[in-house]
């Protein structure tokens, strides 16, 4: 007979806004977790998944209060505990693995001292014992050099390793319940697969119960026994992983699943023979830091990259963080001048530095950045943001300019009433649309899209991709689409370049991504993308290193 380790009943969590208005952010949530069961909380940002997970620790973030309901962990009501009791609970019965391990470790202390801190605080064992235990956990989490890795400092290990060390920190107190808060969201797919595998291994061997918070259904499918779908602080649907994936009931769950379906992209490419490319990038070398005597920068981020973009077509650039894909966009835009090589636009070479390019050249290539939060000036209204490029490039003012702003908002499917708002008064997806509209305002030929869907929820991202496709047909645009997400690139690109460590590893048509890759790195990259199939993780062959 299995007993429930967690029983949440009618949980209500409220917050107070700065004008004193009370909002319920979690509404009547109830669920159980059986011993040894891993339950996933899934939903978009703002759905309350982390808030619920934190309530298991008896913690409500500043400004939030638990208003009603009970949270029982091993039969004891966490909400009724006093601070000392909660402190005794944390780390020994319930442990937490945060999203960003890099932010969770103190950079000035050795890793092992931080990992065994829980044992020290709760006086669980002697320090030599704790060290031995930590090293055992490092083995279990398949960390490299488990005997000595603890003596390093946080900056000396990779992001994936740090995330596993954070898990070791949580595991050392032998908790009955582990909470994983988006632990792999910030990792590259090739690293994510190792971390997931290590987590799954440890959890099954230890027979622990867990809560896995994520927005990524495919990741959750690998590790969870049961899935709870959340939206706007309410449970929309809950069921076994298999049921949710194969037989979703709620429309929102279906929408989430639909966003995973690869959207076929009809390449408009015609084999018209030798047409001069719109943008021809020839053997570009660029990097950061002082340029040395040999004419090379201190850190070379792009090594001999060549590629071409034809009118009306889209070029995808894919690779993990640090592969140089964003640097390529900055070099094309002239923000990071190359030290060697040429960028030929429409048959004539562009100056390496944007300062030396003409206004017309600048107008025709626009760049859209990943984070709309930092790409839109927070103090200027949407109207103001969009009218500036119109005034700047076309010298239009007043009513003519306002009419164009309205047309732009219409183009990106935003109501024109939004133009008086400030960026912070829009949602993430709306901000990204404004970000895109600003680039469109210049009436460009090429838009460089730098990870523009990465910070968005899956459903929202899918809508933005649809918008991009629609605009392309309407306006005769060409995109260079940079992403680390294979499925988005596939949904919009004709050709895809795989980058690794500043080098172009391979170029192939988007349609042949899955079976046409020849280079070992591209193969590894493509096979690391999680699939909705729960058996996927176990089917991927192990790699030697890392």
């Amino acid at each position, binding site marked *: 007979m299995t007993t429930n380790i967690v029983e949440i009943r009618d949980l209500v969590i409220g917050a107070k*806004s*700065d*004008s004193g*208005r009370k909002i319920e952010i979690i509404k009547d949530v109830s669920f159980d977790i059986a011993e040894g069961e891993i339950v996933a909380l899934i939903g978009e940002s703002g759905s309350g998944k982390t808030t619920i997970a934190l309530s298991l620790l008896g913690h409500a973030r*500043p*400004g939030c209060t638990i208003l009603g309901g009970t949270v029982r962990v091993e039969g004891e009501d966490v909400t009724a505990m006093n601070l000392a009791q909660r402190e005794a609970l944390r780390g020994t019965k319930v442990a937490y693995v945060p999203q960003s391990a890099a932010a969770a470790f103190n950079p000035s202390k050795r890793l092992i001292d931080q990992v065994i801190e829980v044992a020290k605080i709760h006086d669980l064992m002697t320090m030599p014992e704790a060290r031995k235990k930590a090293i055992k956990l490092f083995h279990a989490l398949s960390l490299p050099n488990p005997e000595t890795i603890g003596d390093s400092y946080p900056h000396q290990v990779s992001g994936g390793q740090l995330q596993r060390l954070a898990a070791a920190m949580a595991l050392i107190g032998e908790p009955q319940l582990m909470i994983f808060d988006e632990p792999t969201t910030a990792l590259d797919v090739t690293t994510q697969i190792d971390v997931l595998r290590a987590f799954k291994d440890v959890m099954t061997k230890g027979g622990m119960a867990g809560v896995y918070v994520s927005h990524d259904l495919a990741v959750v499918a690998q590790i969870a026994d049961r899935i709870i779908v959340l939206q706007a602080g309410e449970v929309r649907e809950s069921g076994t992983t298999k049921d949710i994936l194969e037989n979703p009931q709620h429309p929102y769950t279906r929408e989430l699943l639909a966003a995973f379906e690869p959207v076929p992209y009809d390449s408009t490419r015609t084999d018209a023979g030798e047409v001069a490319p719109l943008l021809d990038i020839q053997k570009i070398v660029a990097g950061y830091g002082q340029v040395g005597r040999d004419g090379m920068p201190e850190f070379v981020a792009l090594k001999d990259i060549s590629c071409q973009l034809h009118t009306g077509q889209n070029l995808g650039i894919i690779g993990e963080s640090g592969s140089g894909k964003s640097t390529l966009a900055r070099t094309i*835009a*002239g*923000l990071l001048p190359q030290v060697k090589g040429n960028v030929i636009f429409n048959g004539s070479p562009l100056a390496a530095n*944007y300062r030396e*390019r003409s*206004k017309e050249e*600048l*107008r025709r290539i*626009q*760049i859209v*950045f990943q*984070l709309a939060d*930092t*790409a*839109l*000036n*927070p*103090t*200027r209204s949407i109207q103001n943001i969009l009218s*500036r*490029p119109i005034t*700047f*490039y076309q010298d239009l003012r007043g009513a003519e300019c306002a009419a164009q702003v309205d047309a732009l908002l219409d183009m990106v499917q935003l109501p024109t009433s939004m133009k008086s708002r400030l960026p*912070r008064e829009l949602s993430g997806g709306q901000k990204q649309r404004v970000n895109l509209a*600003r680039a469109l305002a*210049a009436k460009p030929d090429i838009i460089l899209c730098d990870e523009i869907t990465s910070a968005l929820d899956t459903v929202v991202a899918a809508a933005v991709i649809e918008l991009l496709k629609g605009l392309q047909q309407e306006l005769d645009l060409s995109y260079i689409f940079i992403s680390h997400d294979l499925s988005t690139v596939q949904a919009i690109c004709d050709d895809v370049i795989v980058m690794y460590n500043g080098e172009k590893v391979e170029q192939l048509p988007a349609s042949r991504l899955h079976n046409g890759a020849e280079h070992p790195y591209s193969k590894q990259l493509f096979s690391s993308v999680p699939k909705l199939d729960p058996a996927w993780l176990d089917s991927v062959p192990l790699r030697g290193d890392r």
Partner: protein
Amino acid sequence: MARHKRTFQPLGYSVSFVTLFAVTIIFFWAGVAIFGNLLAPHSPSKIVDVDYFGPMSKAFPFGSDYLGRDVLSRIILGARFTVGISLCSVLLACFSGVVLGMSAAVVGGWYDTILSRFLDALSSIPSKLFGLVMVAAVGSSTPILIVLLAVIYTPGSYRFARALAVNVNAMDYVTVARARGERTFYLITQEILPNITGPVLADLGLRFVFIVLLLSGLSFLGLGVQPPNADWGSIVRENIGGLSFAAPAVLAPCLAIASLTISVNLLIDNLPVKIRDTGE
């Protein structure tokens, strides 16, 4: 954890009662500075009391000074110098500091290096000593005091504005504007300035306090406002002999300086916060 302060909410701003208190005192002194000659019960330079260092009385609420002049009237007229000179110099200092700081952040390179080193050198001179030397060299008059105080406080304001502007300058929206081909003037006025006004205003208030204190210090040393005019610092100095008689003539101008500087500080620490939640 946030402390829960009692607030009220006019015009979509959350204002604490400390702010209201500070603002009242600041407006009070501003009013005194503007309408001083209407408010003063006596002429500030006329000897009206038979006694020197006289005690508080109905006729002389803050007593009389070392010559038997009315201290209240002298403080009221002194407000004009203390508040006026400080305000002019702080505006001058912050304007030049912020403009130079933002342009250094945006232009960068040699311009930034040379400007930063020069202003660093300037700020390495002790401010009182610098004031002393300058006043000794060119004499003391109101315009010279204003410029002197402004020069002393420009490097600090420059450093502060530059540090803020460098952060904003690294934002993607500035990069987008650059890639669009915008000129430095547009970048400074439209993209950067609106994002640093809050901290810059707070810095302005703080610098105002420093300047009031430095001006009072200079006047106390006899280098500031010259007789027959007097600011609060020089009133303290004139009457320092009355300290052993516990004369209110020493204490009153000190309290005036304290009330102004503390109020400005309180206001800076409790600036009204715009309420973001508009009920959707």
